[in-house]
């Protein structure tokens, strides 16, 4: 569904993405992991068209996204930090996005909205919300239009344990429905039960891209966080020699 070919992006002198090639097929939850400043968010933003790459191209469902905007109707995006116009109420925000997507209230996926009990705070202004509540709103928005591809940037950061579980269950449900979920997260322990593939990004290059089972086998570790730590630790050790 998503194909990235020779993607390069520089911010000034800094090369953030260096000739990245990726092919994501079909369904499942793909976890994008890497140290800070490894280019995770830039990669995600390139797919969304928020960042314009210097060279290379990105294909979504087989067509080049350069200069295209309609392809984004298939993507649900949950940003790392969600901030919305202060003077708008939650209900108005939803109404606006439904308007923009030319959808109707009936067609929308309201499961997450019901579970988070957003209806109770519909008339609250977005400027008065706490960070966690805003995160919930972002999550609801990402799933609202039933997109085939979900891109979640640090979705569990700032959510309380209950909300976190609700979101995870929703993600599992969507994977079963055949959706592709691309996720970045620092809280690796959250991901164990979801992830089917792991992409490890380092210094703007893809270090490896393999299935979680393969990674388990290669490292001999059962948990994702330990497996990743082992991969990173091993690298550091090798460099020291």
């Amino acid at each position: 569904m998503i194909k990235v070919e020779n993607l390069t992006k520089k911010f000034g002198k800094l090369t953030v993405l260096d000739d990245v090639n990726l092919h994501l097929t079909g369904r499942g939850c793909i976890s994008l992991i890497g140290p800070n400043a490894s280019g995770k968010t830039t990669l995600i933003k390139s797919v969304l068209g928020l960042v314009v790459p210097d060279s290379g191209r990105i294909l979504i469902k087989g067509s080049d996204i350069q200069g295209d905007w309609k392809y984004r109707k298939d993507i649900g995006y949950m940003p790392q930090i969600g901030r919305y116009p202060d003077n708008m109420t939650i209900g108005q925000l939803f109404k606006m996005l439904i308007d923009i997507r030319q959808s109707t209230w009936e067609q929308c996926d309201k499961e997450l909205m019901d579970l988070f009990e957003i209806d109770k705070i519909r008339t609250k202004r977005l400027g008065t919300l706490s960070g966690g509540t805003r995160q919930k709103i972002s999550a609801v928005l990402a799933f609202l239009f039933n997109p085939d591809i979900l891109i979640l940037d640090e979705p569990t950061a700032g959510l309380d344990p209950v909300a976190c579980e609700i979101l995870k269950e929703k993600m599992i449900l969507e994977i079963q429905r055949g959706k592709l979920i691309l996720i970045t997260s620092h809280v690796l322990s959250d991901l164990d039960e979801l992830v089917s593939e792991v992409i490890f990004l380092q210094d703007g290059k893809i270090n490896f891209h393999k299935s979680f089972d393969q990674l388990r086998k290669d490292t001999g570790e059962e948990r994702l966080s330990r497996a990743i730590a082992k991969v990173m630790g091993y690298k550091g050790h090798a460099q020291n020699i």
Partner: protein
Amino acid sequence: MLKIFKYVFLDIIRNKIVLLYTLALLIISLSMFNISESPEKAIISLLNIELIVLPLICGVFSTIYVYNSSEFIELLVAQPLRRVAIFRSILFGLVAALSFAFLIGLGIPLLIYSPDSTGFIFLLSGVALTACFTAFALVAAVYTKDKAKGIGVTILLWFYFTLIYDGLVLFILFQFGDYPLEKYMIGLSCMNPIDLVRILLLLKIDSAAIMGYTGAIFKDFFGSGMGTIISGSVLLFWFVLPAWLAIRKFRRKDL
């Protein structure tokens, strides 16, 4: 496009700063009309507000608004929408909301105390200046990533158009005082939207006499139908140019 415009507009007119701006304009203009002996004198006093305070507030407010909505702009760009459409909606939303505030704040008192063509031109040029300086602000906000720098650029632009430019013109006038510069002054005044509005309005209030021979040339030019059309187009140009620059940059900007 109209949908986003509507929401941006509604968001801004409920902003506390914009409400304060409207209220301040309303109080100042009402008291000016009550203090002054004739409405014309009050308009001359209000002219300074329109030429100095309005550009500053529109510029700084718009810059800050764009920076503060950066995450929201990101959310919109991630939707199936054209970038240009998003940008236009924000630009016109800002212009419409700030013009609305101006029209309430100054328009109501003008309608009460001076409902003639002078008042009408006064309001129209205020809207034009609002549009120009909102567009300038968007250029500053789109080209610089840092918020403090962006606001600095806006203030610098305001400073240039309200003070430095006049200083430069005066400098040229004194240096080349022996030459007949009157006709060139028309060209020079077109290089600055604030100057253009000032001349248009001073001519309208018949204060052209205080400008001497240059005033007579101005009256000849700007008083004619052709001059009005030209000055209107020049003001439009001062809105279209920065807006075009900002859109051109925004199309390929990394958010």
